[in-house]
């Protein structure tokens, strides 16, 4: 039998001890690189913009550079004569912060519920997932509108409601991934060794559903950006006088014919940002799917 043993050792490919993880595999794809560059550009603008704006244009986001809707300065003025370019530079940070926070809430909540339901199985699972279905039957935006109508357009509410409405969607994915993992024998092995449930969830399940969760994270971040911007655009999100891209589009679209910059710049920024995060998400999804195919 030693001959067979040798044979098998030969058959084992020499693989490095540090195996490339999800991110490594994703990074190998061109979409990841393009997406990261696009995202990084907008994130840089959003993060540094509030400081850079006054330096570049000499204006504050809220002071007056000229008459309303005129072509003064780099990108003209807005409806009450503030400098559009300065406001554009200042308008991304809040949006980004809210989107990130909302996504974080959604992921934590959704993953917890989904893993719990998927691992528990049985009646508890069906009850939780039916409840999930009820929540899912509201489009997120409608839910957000309801909440804002009830409580008012506060930043914390925006973050909470978007995060909480992400949760059932993430929970569904997390549950599905969990069910697949729970079907694996290593979970039964862990149960056989009387590993406590929470340890099984955190130690056995969670590390094995990071692929789908990372994909969800990216996807929900993209959506969060979209929702925060959309709500601001509808006048129900970030409130004046804050410079915010969604709000700017709403404030300035009345004069699209006369002064398009106030719309064009934020539209471009949101587009580039969401495309960037979506490209990254797509590369993560490809990497995760590729792994499963192996």
């Amino acid at each position, binding site marked *: 039998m030693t001959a067979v043993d040798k044979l098998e050792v030969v058959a084992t490919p020499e693989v490095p001890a540090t195996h490339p993880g999800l991110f490594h595999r994703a990074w190998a794809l061109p*979409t990841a690189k393009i997406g990261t560059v696009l995202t990084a550009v907008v994130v840089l603008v959003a993060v540094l913009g509030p400081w850079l704006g006054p330096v570049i244009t000499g204006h504050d986001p809220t002071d007056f550079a000229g008459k309303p809707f005129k072509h003064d300065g780099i990108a003209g003025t807005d409806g009450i004569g503030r400098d559009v370019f300065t406001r554009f530079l200042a308008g991304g940070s809040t949006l980004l912060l809210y989107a990130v926070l909302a996504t974080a809430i959604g992921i934590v909540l959704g993953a917890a519920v989904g893993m719990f339901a998927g691992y528990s199985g049985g009646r508890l699972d069906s009850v939780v997932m*039916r409840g999930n*279905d*009820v929540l*899912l*039957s*509201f*489009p*997120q*935006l*409608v839910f957000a*509108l*309801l909440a*804002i*109508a*009830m409580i008012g357009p506060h930043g914390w509410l925006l973050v909470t409601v978007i995060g909480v409405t992400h949760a059932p969607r993430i929970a569904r994915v997390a549950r599905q991934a969990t069910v697949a993992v729970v079907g694996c024998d290593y979970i039964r092995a862990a149960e056989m060794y009387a590993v406590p449930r929470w340890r099984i969830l955190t130690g056995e399940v969670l590390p094995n559903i990071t692929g789908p969760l990372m994909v969800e994270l990216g996807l929900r971040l*993209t959506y969060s*950006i*979209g*929702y925060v*911007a*959309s709500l601001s*655009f*509808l*006048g*129900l999100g970030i409130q004046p006088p804050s410079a915010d891209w*969604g709000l700017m*589009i709403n404030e300035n*679209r009345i004069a*699209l*014919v006369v002064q*398009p910059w106030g*719309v*064009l710049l934020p*539209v471009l920024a*949101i*587009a580039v940002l*969401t*495309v960037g*995060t*979506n*490209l990254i998400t*797509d590369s993560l999804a490809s990497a995760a799917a590729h792994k499963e195919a192996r």
Partner: protein
Amino acid sequence: MARLIVRRLVVSLAVLWLVTLLVFIATLLLPGDPARAILGQQATPERIAALQHQLNLDAPVWQRYLDWLGGVFTGDLGFSTATQGSVNSLLGDRIVASLVLLVAAAVISTAVGLALGTWTAMRRGRPVDHAVSGISLVIAALPEFVIGMALIILLSTTVFRLFPSVTLTRPGAQVWSEPSQLVLPVLTLVLVVAPYITRMMRATMSEVLDSGYVEMARLKGLPERTVIVRHAFPHAIGPVAQVIALQLAWLAGGVVVVEFLFRYPGIGQALIDAVNKRDVEVVQAITLMIAAMYIVVNLLADIVGMLTNPKVAAR
């Protein structure tokens, strides 16, 4: 089979009922007093009390819920405090208008998505596949108002001036009486939804094309057209139907932004107005409609899924 569908139906009804409960509770929490809203600032407390009684606002909560639910069942959606008229008459034309928008967008995006998805799945790895994938990935990322705004800049105001950017319906006329003004809203929704359907169709179709029975069909020497039409396409439809359903249900939410953007006289715009005016009954009616639509669409998708799966269908 029939039993499965009935069971699915019962579950949907239960979900719908929970939704009515949720909507009712949520709107209970809306601040503001409808009676005061109707009577205005000068109203005396007595008159407000009288109107509250008349509107049944002093009844216990469960009584009001049952009354409201009964109204919903009999097609009476209540009284809009902001417009001082019945919700039915407020929303009647708007529902039709929204449905026109939704159905047009749904039909076009489904057709485009299925065709494009199948086409690219058959050309996997070729430049055209990469191009379609890339473009759909980019468009899928964009929030609907960004797509809408871009279309307005591109096709309405700044670059080309082909289509009107707002919907202007002469009083009494229907939205479709002037088809050119439907173009941009419909196109926006199509661009929002079609990329998802395309990508899903491509993925599912690729999987099906790699499947044993498609390989077998090819190894049987069948013409490629037969392989695609008879062996591959029917199997891709099932899973994609679910995605289409999700997307269409999602359209019901997206339509809010698109209607607001294009000033399209549908229920989405009415919802935003109602939220701004704290018009409780209108908010209730519209959210319920949107949720009901979601549930129905999903139900249909599940039934399609059951019917296309012979293992279930034969049961």
